[in-house]
């Protein structure tokens, strides 16, 4: 459903732009083009047929088959190829940041919620609210200033040092060094969010009746935490992590722009500056698809965590 709406929105947006591919490809109005030539072009692109249902159906079926059209900027390369080429870099960035953020953020948040009102709780909550309100790309810029410009520890630009030979161990280390700052920027923003939610979930659980029962049974703190509190508190956190994917990628787009990271975000910015609509729409479709998949995964994970859902 969501995907269909994304596709339809894509279709409408694309038609709203003045001028059609034929006039673009023939070089606009400046060069003299005969009306017959324009008509021939329009026919070859299928633009002479009625908008609905012919063009819509064509568009949807082409999209289903993975044909996302051709880029304006990259000399008519296929949009699907362009996106696939850039995808691994973004997956590495977002995936690594997610793993780090989940490990740190959720653990810190759960702990803060468990020990509500303690010193760690105050520090963590304050910091994470601040991180939560900070745009990830600005964190990235600060990291560049501190770790790249001032201290010179890590590179703040691109994915490889010039002249690096692909495939060697050095190359991998170089790649990871380039990856460190962007990952840190994305992960820090996420940690803020996860801490806030995990803490709220845990503080809800702590006051439940079954926790009182557990304590009355004589369980130790650790047993209570592991057997009763942890799984229940994870429910809202899992939902958030899955629903969040769109926002993570959105944040990654701006972070990639800061670090000139050669992923989807970099591609988005290039497409945006060149007004390369087919590429933008391909990215939009990809994001829509991944959000739908993430929702599905969340539902499945929910079933695993919560026996009540399984029935």
């Amino acid at each position: 459903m969501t995907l269909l709406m994304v596709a339809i929105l894509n279709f409408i947006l694309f038609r709203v732009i003045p001028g059609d591919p034929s006039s673009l490809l023939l070089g606009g109005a400046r060069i003299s083009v005969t009306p017959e030539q324009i008509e021939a072009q329009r026919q070859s692109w299928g633009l002479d047929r009625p908008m609905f249902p012919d063009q819509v159906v064509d568009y949807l079926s082409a999209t289903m088959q993975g044909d996302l059209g051709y880029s304006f900027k990259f000399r008519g390369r296929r949009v699907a190829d362009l996106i696939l080429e850039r995808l691994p870099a973004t997956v590495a960035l977002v995936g690594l940041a997610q793993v780090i953020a989940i490990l740190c953020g959720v653990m810190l948040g759960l702990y803060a919620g468990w020990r509500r009102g303690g010193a760690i709780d105050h520090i963590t909550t304050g910091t994470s609210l601040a991180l939560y309100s900070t745009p990830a790309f600005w964190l990235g810029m600060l990291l560049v200033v501190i770790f790249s410009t001032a201290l010179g520890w890590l590179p703040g630009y691109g994915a490889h040092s010039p002249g690096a030979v692909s495939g060697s161990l050095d190359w991998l280390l170089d790649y990871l060094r380039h990856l460190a700052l962007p990952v840190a920027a994305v992960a820090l923003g996420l940690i803020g969010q996860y801490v806030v939610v995990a803490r709220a979930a845990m503080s809800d659980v702590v006051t439940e009746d079954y926790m009182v029962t557990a304590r009355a049974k004589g369980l130790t703190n650790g047993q209570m935490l592991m057997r009763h509190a942890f799984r229940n508190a994870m429910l809202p956190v899992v939902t958030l992590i899955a629903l969040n994917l769109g926002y993570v990628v959105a944040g990654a787009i701006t972070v990639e722009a800061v670090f000139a990271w050669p992923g989807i975000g970099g591609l988005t910015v290039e497409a945006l500056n060149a007004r390369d609509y087919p590429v933008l729409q391909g990215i939009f479709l990809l994001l829509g698809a991944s959000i739908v998949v993430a929702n599905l995964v969340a539902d499945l994970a929910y079933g695993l965590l919560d026996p009540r859902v399984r029935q």
Partner: protein
Amino acid sequence: MSESTVRYSPRGRTRAIKSFLCQFLGHGGAQAGLVCLVFFLVLAAAPNTLVGPLQTAINATGDFLVPPSGEHLLGTDEVGRDVLNLVVHGARISLTIALLATVISLVVGTSVGITAGYYGGRVDVWLMRLTDFFFVMPSFVLALVITPVVLEVMGRGGDILGFRPSLFVIIVVIGMTSWAFVARIVRSQTLSLKERTFVDRARVVGSSNIVIMVKHILPNLLPQIAANGALVVAGAIYVETSLSFLGLGDPLQPSWGTLLALAQRAGAASAGAWWDLGAPGVCVLTVSLSFVLIGNALDDTFNPRRRVIP
């Protein structure tokens, strides 16, 4: 609590407002948030009297990328403009965009939510399906695709209601894409409110559906709308900053995001010009943190049963 025993009295309402204010201001977060917010609202209200007219590359007053000094408290940017001047002017633009976008988003979200909740049935199903779409698609991603297209159609010249077209488009696009959260909350509240006796009574007296929704249900929703409105503002600031950072802002009316974009393009980060990128970023951080704190405090005050993050 039955309605028949609670009589309307002006004094009761004053007392209610007073106790609400006491409770609300009892939150440390709310106090800090309000203080910051008032500070930035003052900046936004009178940028010209505070720091003089907006500097451009033509009337820039300093050298390129000068660190903070007595003359330029926050240093200068890559064309010699005073960063303090830019940031104060940016406050007006960023806050206006965020607040107007929030108004649009609240109006759309509330209308959709009330309509869906009140009428139920097929209306509810379809409106909520639409809401779900906007709920899962991040506002930023939608805006990223829609804004350049609308800009292309409308052109970048001239101005609309005192805004450059790109800013106007950003306001509308943010407003139209960030209402789903509000709609969901309003709908669930409406579902419970419409079963109350005062709604039945209004219907018996002969009020139309519209009147019931606007005069009887809407006032009861205001607390939730206010609390979420504050969070929507924070979100709008985030989206606006990110969009402007990617180059969709307007250099002639620079918001904080645009300033960051200019700093990034000029390589301020690798030049070590921390003041150039630090000042707008700190402003974004402070303002959106203030709104989050105020929103949480409002939420906490209005539903005492919910334990909210501080």
